[in-house]
């Protein structure tokens, strides 16, 4: 028993620097959090409330789930992307380019440092997403009846997917940050890849090899976040259009298992590679 307690104490001492870093990171980044929060709240209120309140007859989606998925589009296609880039682009490379790391590295194990910083930023970003979800859900009460049981559960699952998608993107950006020289270059290049690169490659794939599902693409995976809200999950998960003797296939959304797997791979591989490169990286 005593041994166990000693073990606990030891573990606590080991974890302490991570906690200190986590708290420090929250203090350091809270301004970004406030910024994203303000933008999110404004967008939600404008898009999901004022717009429908003003033009309720013509614009209001017919079903509750359509309303929700429409309200979440800004989150999935812009907010998560930009938040990940802005919170995480500097997480490693700024320590080198601003030389702030010279003061920290002798004091703390680099793995603990990166874990603390990573968790701190994730916490803030998750806060933005949670508030976004809460607001969209809350505002839907003004236009529809109460959530039906299934839809509420779906809405929660959708939140979990959005959360995982956010972590995957953050890991991806963290990985970039671990070998890039400057914060701005990291922001620009990750936005280009995540926002445009994936979509363009998806388009090429659609033309060249339509039978291959673009599961590598995070933006394709992100469609799960809103399609999970549909009471009838699309099956098959693609639609086909035949033109003369050629068939175009549009992939709508990945299966849930595939989505989870890909997100999990992005999260773990991105972070582990980033941590390793950070550990190895010198000035």
């Amino acid at each position, binding site marked *: 028993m005593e041994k166990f307690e000693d073990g606990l104490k030891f573990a606590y001492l080991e974890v*302490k*620097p991570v906690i*200190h*870093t986590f708290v*420090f990171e929250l*203090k*350091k980044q809270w*301004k970004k959090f406030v*910024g994203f929060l*303000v*933008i999110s709240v*404004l*967008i939600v209120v*404008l*898009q999901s409330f004022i*717009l429908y309140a003003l033009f309720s007859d013509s*614009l*209001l*989606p*017919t*079903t509750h*789930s*359509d*309303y929700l*998925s*429409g309200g979440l*589009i800004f989150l*999935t*296609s812009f907010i998560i992307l930009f938040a990940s880039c802005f919170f995480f682009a500097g997480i490693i490379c700024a320590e080198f380019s*601003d*030389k*702030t*790391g*010279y*003061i*920290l*590295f*002798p*004091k*703390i194990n680099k793995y603990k440092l990166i874990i603390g910083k990573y968790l701190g930023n994730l916490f803030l970003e998750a806060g933005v997403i949670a508030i976004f979800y809460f607001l969209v859900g809350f505002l839907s009460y003004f236009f529809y009846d109460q959530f039906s049981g299934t839809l509420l559960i779906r809405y929660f699952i959708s939140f979990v997917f959005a959360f995982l998608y956010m972590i995957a993107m953050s890991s991806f950006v963290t990985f970039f940050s671990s070998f890039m020289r400057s914060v701005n270059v990291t922001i620009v290049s990750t936005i280009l890849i995540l926002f445009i690169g*994936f*979509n363009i490659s*998806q388009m090429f794939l659609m033309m060249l090899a339509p039978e291959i599902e673009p599961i590598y*693409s995070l*933006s*394709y995976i*992100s*469609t799960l976040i*809103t*399609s999970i809200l*549909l009471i009838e999950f*699309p099956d098959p998960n693609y639609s086909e259009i035949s033109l003369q003797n050629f068939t175009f296939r*549009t*992939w*709508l*959304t990945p299966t849930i298992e595939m989505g989870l797997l890909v997100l999990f791979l992005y999260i773990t591989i991105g972070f582990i590679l980033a941590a390793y490169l950070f550990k190895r990286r*010198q*000035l």
Partner: protein
Amino acid sequence: MMGPVKPGGGFQGQNFLLIFLIIVIIIVVIIIVYFVIKKRKKKKGQEKLREHAYKGIKSREDIKSIYTPTGTSTSENKNEKNDTMIKLENLTKYYGKYLAVDNVSFEVHSGEVIGLVGPNGAGKTTIIKMIAKLLRPSSGRIWVRDNQGELKDLNKKSRNLVKLGFLIDIPAFYKDMTAYQILKYSALLQRYPREKINDRIDELLKIFDLIDWKHEKVKTFSKGMTQKLGMIQSIIHDPEIIILDEPQTGLDPLARIDIRRIIKEFHRNGKTIFVASHMLAEISEVCEKIALINFGVIIAFDTIDNLERGLRTSGLNCKLLDPISPDQLGSIIKKLTERLEPYLDKDLDVLVSKIPIKYIPQKRSFKIFYDTTDSKQTRAEILKILVKEFESDFTVVSFSKPKKSSQLEQIYSRLIAEDKVEIELSKGGVN
């Protein structure tokens, strides 16, 4: 826009434009508000900067309170045998192909104040970064003492090394954080007891005269203030070994004196200090031993007294009217060595020079290291020989021994200069 069409999304083309416009407006508003706030804050900071005038570090009693003495006093420590705190062993560092630190070995003992002195680019910061584990050595090892008094290889994982404090290069902090936040984080990371942290921070900020700036963001700090903050973070956890890289950079003369006083106070309390500087005068007063470094090579490592003694040797400068042509040089030096043999310095320190007679083309002069046992007599004899027997080879215009006055500074510049000349000569020889 993002991938395939969202199935059944309530999102039509016409409202997209509307939403987009609204968002652009929001963003513009946010940006304007941000800049207005920023400008107002900046003004406030500048006013404060003006109010702030340097008052200097408080009395010695104040400074004293920032250390826990290490127990044994310095003089006792020196006699102990196994009291090495840091040991560098054949430390070498390449930046790509560039050799920045070349096979450096020395030891720092408990309670010593060691100065690492060399011109800019000599490799001082590189050595310190390797001790701080910011850089991996290309080869060689660094040992640091642990709490049990054993030396541990820095490369291997070991928990309880003696506490080290670092000030590396020009320190840089997170710009948006306050001095207090940064110092608290530093102290917590180094396991300084939480309940004592606030007092400790106040105390140090007072001593360095930054207490008014405790809750100001670091980006409003001047260069000198940032440097002081760097100094504070290096000693916030009361370390046993303090490693300072150019602590005087960016500081005004008064603050420089304060830095020296603080180093002395550390020393008095038995701390081990390793300080790098390109200005010998800044640290010679506080250092017991000096390691002179140039081009990554330690060219001397000794106490200041010994350095002075060793170098006072006896280099005679003998300036000539006309330069000696390279093809004659060999034979003339040979003849000189033969003729002056009885008067030359027999046990010349190789660190000073490898050969007793040197020709320095840039200065158009010979440097002759002579035996100082009967110095006046010897000099007279040498002069006689040079003038009489070498009349046909060259004409002596002046004949001087190095001035004694600004000894240490001269030693430094001379050592470095000679090092350079030798390197240049050897380069010229190769070509």
